[in-house]
């Protein structure tokens, strides 16, 4: 009977894991807020924010992408049953420059600190 009890105990012992992964550093909100379309140059942007993760050429114009992303995973294993939730959010900024490399437009999304640990049946970001 003991092996059966041991097997039952093993079967009912849950295995769970929480993991978090990030890519790049969170964007500096103050530095982004200080950017001035029509005045700030691409050189000044790089001096303040560092190297972008992507540069897109738009004819003679260009756009720089800065990004930080964070993913949170919660996993629960019960023998052959597995419950897993993965939630990813990002800080993202796209900076657009004209032919003279002067900033013209800024698009910012700051959600990198919002991913949540949860189970698949739970509601997120309410």
């Amino acid at each position, binding site marked *: 009977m003991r092996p059966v009890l041991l097997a039952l105990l093993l079967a009912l012992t849950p295995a769970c894991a929480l993991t978090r992964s990030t890519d790049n550093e969170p964007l500096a909100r103050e530095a982004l807020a200080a950017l001035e379309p029509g005045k700030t140059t691409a050189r000044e942007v790089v001096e303040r924010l560092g190297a972008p993760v992507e540069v897109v050429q738009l004819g003679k114009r260009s756009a720089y992408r800065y990004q930080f992303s964070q993913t949170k995973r919660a996993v629960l294993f019960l*023998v*052959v049953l597995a*419950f*897993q939730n993965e939630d*990813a959010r990002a800080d993202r900024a*796209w900076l657009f420059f004209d032919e003279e490399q002067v900033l013209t437009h800024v698009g*910012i*999304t700051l959600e990198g600190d919002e991913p949540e640990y949860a189970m698949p*049946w739970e509601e997120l970001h309410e």
Partner: protein
Amino acid sequence: MRAAAALLVALASSGCLRVAWERQSRHAPITPAALERLRPAEADLAACLAELGAPLWVWEHVEDGRASAVLAYGWYDQRDLGLRVSVPLYRALSASFEYDKIDERLRGAVLFFGPDWRLTARREGLLRDLTVELRPKRPQPLEEDA
């Protein structure tokens, strides 16, 4: 005794058989109302960025022979219940079969701009389908002559 045997089988198969309930979510969705406020020929790049935030991707787009841009926004939130069977072959290599696999395609919107940064068109749907002609093509390896 049968219960114990069933339990042992379940335990023994846990390495290669899994019933999984999974959920994956990426990025916050854009509301239909926010998209509706951006009307082609009226909205400009500044209005779109203020309304929707930063896009996931920006690509070059040539309109009337002049370079401009396409902005792509996307997200998904997918729940899935599936059965996964893996058959170990040797060491780390295994053959996996995923039944009822999660469809992870991003839904989203693509905004087209003219050279004056005026919104010219807006498309919504599965991002992979919407952007197949827009994404930069990777260079293909040169084929050597035989």
